[in-house]
């Protein structure tokens, strides 16, 4: 039953293995030497655990995988080996457009195999990493094996203009809601314990994942862990290489990612309403310095998008946002690009109002999330203008101030969540 969603190729090879302590899925195309390095690091894990490494191999490159496996020093048929490197092909999947899509496609496959092998935890690697600390894979997986953590999230080196959707909404919202200061609650590189994946597998379920979109599982990782009183930590993994952005696809990205985040928020409302203040979480590894992008950034197009949204989307935003916020937005849109500044409290209230409208289904949910795009680009323009000539520490402080604004405005969210009609300033 559990192997239904596991790709056929994986099952064939994995059937020869009777059990494992850890299952590692490598979704990123890392190259054979990087994979060999990872395998060496995994062999050095304390207690000599049995590790199954699934390496994503395109269908047409399966024959070449044997060479890669021998480069990694693995024999996938040896029953007494402590590490098994197996090819892994996601059948029936079209080419993913974002790393998150590939992660969600791989998710159920890894879960099913981990459950079958009785693994103590599983780990998914979906990104190319630069400036990574040595043995970072061990830091990511050790907490699962020594049972000190159930969810090990990644912490990437901060680059000012990368991961903006995460920095502006997902991370501070998660911190404010669930009280955990976690940088990347949705991965996409992470490790989770058997207890957490069984909770997720049972709660979100195979049907839930199919009907509501696979992103739900990623968005549910931290809420499920925190609300089930499981241990959470994060590990520095170096700098993540982000795929190039297509500015016309930002609205579909927002719809794909924020929908599940707001849905997870709705499902765990009873849990996050009790949380008051945030606390830091255990962070493994030490950060390494990472070069920052130099030069000026062009924000005119972003400001133009924001101004166009304010001009044309009033009718839609009027159904979602209180009049005071609409007034603030109109004032903001009249400023020239060089004076464009999106106040934190305004941005936070907008995000909270959109989350509430998503819950109340005030308008069609896809329309709602897509209509957030000009506001998001307005925030990005404001942030980029402020941080253009700043050091990375200034960016960290700026994002910390934003996270504090999310926490400060939480009573507003709770009030509107409980009494949406009565409390409408």
């Amino acid at each position: 039953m559990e192997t239904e969603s596991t790709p056929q190729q994986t099952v064939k090879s994995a059937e020869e293995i009777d059990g494992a302590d850890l299952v590692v899925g490598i979704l990123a195309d890392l190259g054979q030497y990087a994979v060999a390095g990872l395998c060496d690091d995994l062999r050095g894990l304390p207690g000599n655990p049995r590790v199954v490494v699934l390496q994503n191999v395109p269908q047409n490159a399966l024959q070449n995988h044997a060479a890669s496996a021998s480069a990694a020093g693995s024999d996938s048929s040896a029953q007494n080996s402590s590490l098994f490197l197996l090819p892994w092909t996601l059948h029936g999947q079209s080419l993913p457009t974002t790393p998150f899509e590939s992660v969600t496609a791989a998710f159920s496959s890894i879960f099913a195999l981990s459950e079958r092998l009785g693994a103590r935890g599983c780990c998914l690697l979906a990104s190319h990493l630069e400036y990574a600390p040595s043995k970072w894979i061990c830091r990511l997986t050790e907490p699962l094996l020594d049972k000190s953590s159930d969810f090990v999230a990644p912490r990437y080196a901060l680059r000012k203009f990368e991961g903006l959707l995460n920095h502006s909404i997902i991370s501070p919202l998660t911190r404010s809601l669930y009280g955990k200061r976690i940088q990347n609650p949705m991965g996409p590189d992470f490790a989770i314990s058997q207890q957490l994946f069984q909770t997720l597998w049972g709660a979100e379920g195979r049907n839930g994942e199919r009907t509501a979109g696979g992103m739900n599982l990623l968005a549910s990782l931290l809420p499920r862990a925190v609300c089930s009183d499981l241990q959470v930590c994060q590990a520095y993994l170096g700098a993540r290489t982000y795929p190039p952005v297509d500015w016309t696809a930002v609205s579909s990205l927002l719809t794909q990612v924020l929908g599940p985040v707001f849905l997870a928020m709705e499902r765990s409302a009873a849990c996050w309403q009790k949380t008051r203040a945030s606390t830091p979480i255990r962070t493994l590894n030490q950060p390494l310095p990472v070069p920052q992008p130099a030069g000026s950034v062009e924000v005119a197009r972003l400001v133009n998008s924001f101004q166009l949204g304010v001009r044309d989307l009033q009718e839609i935003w009027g159904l979602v946002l209180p009049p005071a916020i609409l007034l603030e937005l109109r004032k903001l849109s009249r400023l020239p690009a060089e004076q464009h500044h999106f106040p934190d409290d305004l941005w936070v209230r907008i995000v909270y109002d959109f989350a509430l409208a998503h819950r109340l289904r005030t308008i069609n949910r896809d329309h709602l999330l897509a209509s957030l795009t000009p506001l998001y680009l307005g925030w990005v323009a404001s942030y980029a203008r402020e941080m253009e000539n700043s050091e990375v520490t200034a960016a960290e402080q700026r994002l910390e101030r934003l996270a504090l604004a999310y926490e400060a405005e939480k009573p507003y969210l709770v009030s509107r969540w409980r009494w949406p009609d009565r409390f409408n300033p």
Partner: protein
Amino acid sequence: MWQQVRQALNQSTTDFITRLARLLPGFVALVVALLMSLILAWIAAMVVRRLLVSMQFDERLARLGSSAAEWSPRRSPTLLVSTIAAWTIVIIGLLIGLAAFNSDVTSSLVRSVFAYVPHIIGAIIVLFVGLVVARFVARSVLIGAVNLNLGYARLLSVGTKWLVIVLTVAMALVHLKIAVGIVELAFGILFGGIVFALALAVGLGSKELVSKSLERDARKNSSEVLEEPFRHL
């Protein structure tokens, strides 16, 4: 002679009184049917109003962005629906009352009116669905166009909305069998006109956008690195 005239007059008077007397039960039935339908209409209007108020019908419609309030009495769609329900019952009562006369004219009139009712219901459903679809499509186009940075997003949205509305109204009129030929011709002219106007507006307005888009595609094909420094996820 006088005797014959008197006899004819008597005969006519008797005929008139007999026919009047025959009509009386039908007339009484009409009055009773009207009175009963008025009472039923009042009750139905009250029930519908209370039901819709308890469902917060006006607020829900407003949330959906419906413009029904603008053309409703006292800006209340609840009042509009309850009034429509009441008048429907009154008209049905009137038709039943007319049928009680049992004359050929009234019977055929009632039959033809009742035979037309399904067309009216069908047309109302077509109109309702069309208006909902028009609003949905207009919103999709508006948001999509704004997110593509198109300066004429509102024009596109309004144009699309009116295209769907014109199509819907034409379908409803054809369903009602009202001047089918004229409707088809007028629809063709109107629809074609709107499409032509939109094509001109979009075509002339987006020349630059199309050329930029082609340039961007060309750059992508030549593996040129994107200059956009922002990474969202």
